[in-house]
């Protein structure tokens, strides 16, 4: 005989226990430490910090471990923690012009003041398996540079300043106010397509899923909304975080954070302005050039309305981009269909049965009704 | 000034008491014109009545702009808002998320406050009035209230000036835009959301 199903509590406990066991993996393999993750899986950690909007490598490493390497799950863990943190104030805007730069390239100039600094990059590696990393054979490390921090250059001029005052490149748009709206404290207000909405758009893009942003950026390059970007400058390095506590009234350096910044330039495709170059901007935590470049392309695409360009691609539609790029939102909603829906399913079943019955009554060709 | 510096009005237990005060406000607005009791903070906030201090401690912070009626607009009260709530004081009633008036006589014109926008009627000012009495006897206003939150209708008594009714009618007619009001006094709060319809009523007339 059927009885009302009970046992949800026990099932959940059992599922959690099983998850813990699987997370640990084989017991004869040493357990990962969060230090190992933070230092050897740094790019994972950087991505998690960016999409979670929280700079803290040690906690991000913890979330990567806890999520068994599922980075979207890790982002979610870190965001849920961030939500509970009290706020002590806002920092001054970070000054990326005085970044301690470890890598800086410009694709628009052969050479430029300060020079091209290739730094570390996958770009020119041949993607051949390095079996020494699998413990097959001795892994040898290249010698360290002379001075520990000697690879960083401070006070590099910005590449796009080289265009000078010729007016070829649009000026950096004036900020409408000193304080940027905080997306995590005020809801996004649509249409969000004006120049004054750019800070909140950038904030949304910085938090957006890297894969989504990459696809959006790619779509504009293939013709769904015309952005033909050049990398004006891509720089990565360390910036000082400065806060001015209200009770002290003078600035204090709280520490340094690593960031990747991208300035793209692209030709203006509308008719409202004389021919010129326009800007797109990307800025993310840690080392993540794919995200920074995608962000700057999509930022530029989203300025279509402001610049009176034809809006032809999804990447130019702020509502479409801003509402669908958050992987915590998207992943939750897409997967929520795993939850029981049998009440609604039952409602659908009975409706479809009713509609079919009504159709059958109406149509004489169907012959006599069954009872 | 000293009373505030030494013993400013605040919750002894902020988490618990602001939750209780919020539930009083939620109930008051859900069941309009039915005064409910609310917890009050210890200490002083200058000329700010304790019921209004309770609302401020519960609802206001750095994300809210506050307008003060002239009798409340003192350095003492401003300081209290700044330090106990973190709220900024604005001189423009239309910019305020919350407007505070110490007594019914000090109420700003409802039309001077923000009613929100057609797409965003929530961007409106909430007016909080102190010094209100809800006694049946000797009060200037007796009205029949109806609308969401009220089963059929009910009688409501308070010491608001008579001209309030005409102003309220105009506010109510603007629905869904409009100002919501909390009437406070005697350790109680009564809610008057924009959805409530008020009709002047002689006491003798029975209401249902």
């Amino acid at each position, binding site marked *: 005989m*059927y009885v009302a199903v009970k046992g949800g509590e026990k099932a959940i406990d059992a599922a959690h226990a099983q998850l813990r066991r699987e997370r640990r993996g084989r017991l004869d393999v040493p357990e990962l430490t969060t230090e190992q993750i933070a230092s050897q899986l740094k790019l994972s950690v950087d991505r998690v910090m960016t999409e979670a909007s929280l700079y803290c490598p040690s906690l991000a490493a913890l979330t990567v471990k806890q999520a068994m390497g599922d980075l979207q799950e890790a982002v979610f863990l870190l965001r849920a923690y961030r939500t*509970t943190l009290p706020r002590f104030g806002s920092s001054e805007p970070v000054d990326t012009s005085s970044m301690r730069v470890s890598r800086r390239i410009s694709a628009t100039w052969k050479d430029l003041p300060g020079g091209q600094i290739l730094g570390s990059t996958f770009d020119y590696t041949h993607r051949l398996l390095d079996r020494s990393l699998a413990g097959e054979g001795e892994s040898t490390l290249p010698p360290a540079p002379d001075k520990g921090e000697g690879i960083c250059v401070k006070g590099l001029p910005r590449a796009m300043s080289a265009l000078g005052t010729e007016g070829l490149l649009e000026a950096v748009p004036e900020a409408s106010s000193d304080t940027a709206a905080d997306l995590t404290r005020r*809801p996004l207000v649509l249409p969000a397509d004006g120049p004054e909405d750019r800070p909140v758009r950038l904030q949304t893009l910085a938090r957006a899923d890297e894969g989504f942003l990459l696809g959006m950026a790619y779509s504009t390059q293939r013709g769904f909304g015309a952005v033909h970007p050049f990398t004006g400058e891509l720089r990565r390095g360390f910036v000082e975080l400065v806060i001015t506590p209200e009770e002290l009234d003078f600035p204090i350096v709280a520490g340094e954070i690593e960031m990747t910044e991208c300035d793209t330039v692209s030709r203006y495709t509308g008719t409202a302005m004389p021919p010129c170059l326009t800007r797109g901007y990307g800025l993310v935590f840690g080392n993540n050039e794919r995200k920074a470049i995608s962000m700057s392309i999509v930022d530029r695409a989203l300025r279509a309305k402001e610049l009176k360009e034809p809006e032809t691609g999804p990447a130019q539609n702020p509502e479409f981009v801003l509402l669908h790029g958050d992987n915590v939102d998207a992943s939750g909603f897409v997967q929520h269909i795993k939850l029981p829906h049998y*009440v609604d399913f039952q409602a659908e079943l009975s409706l479809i049965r009713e509609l079919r019955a009504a159709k059958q009554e109406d149509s004489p060709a169907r012959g006599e009704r069954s009872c | 000034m000293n009373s505030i510096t030494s013993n400013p009005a605040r919750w002894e237990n902020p988490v*618990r008491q602001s*939750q209780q005060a919020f539930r009083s406000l*939620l109930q008051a*607005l859900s069941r309009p014109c039915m005064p409910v009791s609310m917890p009050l903070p210890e200490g002083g906030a200058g000329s700010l009545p304790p019921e209004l201090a309770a609302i401020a401690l519960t609802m206001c912070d750095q*994300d809210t702009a506050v307008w003060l009626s002239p009798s409340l607009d003192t350095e003492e009260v401003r300081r209290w808002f700044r330090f106990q709530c973190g709220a900024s004081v604005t001189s423009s009633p239309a910019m305020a998320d919350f407007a505070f008036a110490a007594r019914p006589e000090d109420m700003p014109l409802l039309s001077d406050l923000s009613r929100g926008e057609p797409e965003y009627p929530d961007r409106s000012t909430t007016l909080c009035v102190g010094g209100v009495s809800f006694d049946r006897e000797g009060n200037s206003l007796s009205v029949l209230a109806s609308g969401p939150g009220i089963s059929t209708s009910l009688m409501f008594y308070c010491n608001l000036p008579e001209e309030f009714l005409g102003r309220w009618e105009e506010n109510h007619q603007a629905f869904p835009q409009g100002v919501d009001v909390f009437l406070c006094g005697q350790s109680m709060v009564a809610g008057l959301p924009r959805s409530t319809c008020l009709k002047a009523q002689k006491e003798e007339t029975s209401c249902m």
Partner: protein
Amino acid sequence: MLTLQQDSLRSGEKEKMPLEGYNFAYLDESTKRMIRRGLLKAVAVPGYQVPFAGREMPMPCGWGTGGIQVTASVIGEEDVLKVIDQGSDDTTNAVSIRRFFASTTGVKTTTHTAEATIIQTRHRIPEHPLTEQQILVYQVPLPEPLRWLEPSEKETRTLHALEEYGLMNVKIYEDIMRHGAIAMSFDYPVRVNGRYIMSPSPIPRFDNPKMHQCPALQLFGAGREKRLYAIPPYTDVKSLDFEDYPFEVQHWDEPCALCGARHTYLDEVVLDDTGKRMFVCSDSDACAENRARQGMTEVSHD
């Protein structure tokens, strides 16, 4: 996008902290204030969707984070909480949410509708009539009733502002033309207080009439979409229809196979793969009460 990282310090507060390191009901006080401000607006403008800065919660969006944030902003130590999903207290997500509040607030929880002061629900309204002392919190996946007809939020907001609901009438008319009936079985739109068209959340249309003039306060939270809305007690809630095609609730030919109830919402339970099935109450508490009243023994698995 920057937050200074520091463990939560809460100055000198000697609170009962059921879950170490977290505030009562998980949310910090400024988040609660923000949600509470939104809830007051929602109550003042019945059926209107108030935007709020929804937070990440420790469970996924789409799994009840809107309802959870509402409950967390409303709940106090004296409350008694009931959580249901599909009408049942024992579905996994209901268990998970109930546990979350038990551990972050320490409040008493119950499975009995009549004992609860706050009921958080997904997809059902309890069969037991609600009272003035109760608050019903709905988890809402898609708060915009016009969304399937108009995908843009910018447009639907304008339509609500202008009270321009022709689209919805057209949709209902087309249903009738095509199917001879209004083909909406759940999340059936309602008009609140004669003004806003509102999504009742994906409850079966069987439950819609329970919203009308309900003595309890009804609060709705959509976490991912970041919207709050409300129906105050004793408010008119009308399911949309046409005069000649009036709104109707679902009904079943047979009673609940467990308790014999004839006027409850029934789940269809498949018994084998040849189509044999039975129907049982979706509201597990109402069903158990019914059985107890008839002297039937409570059966449960271990």
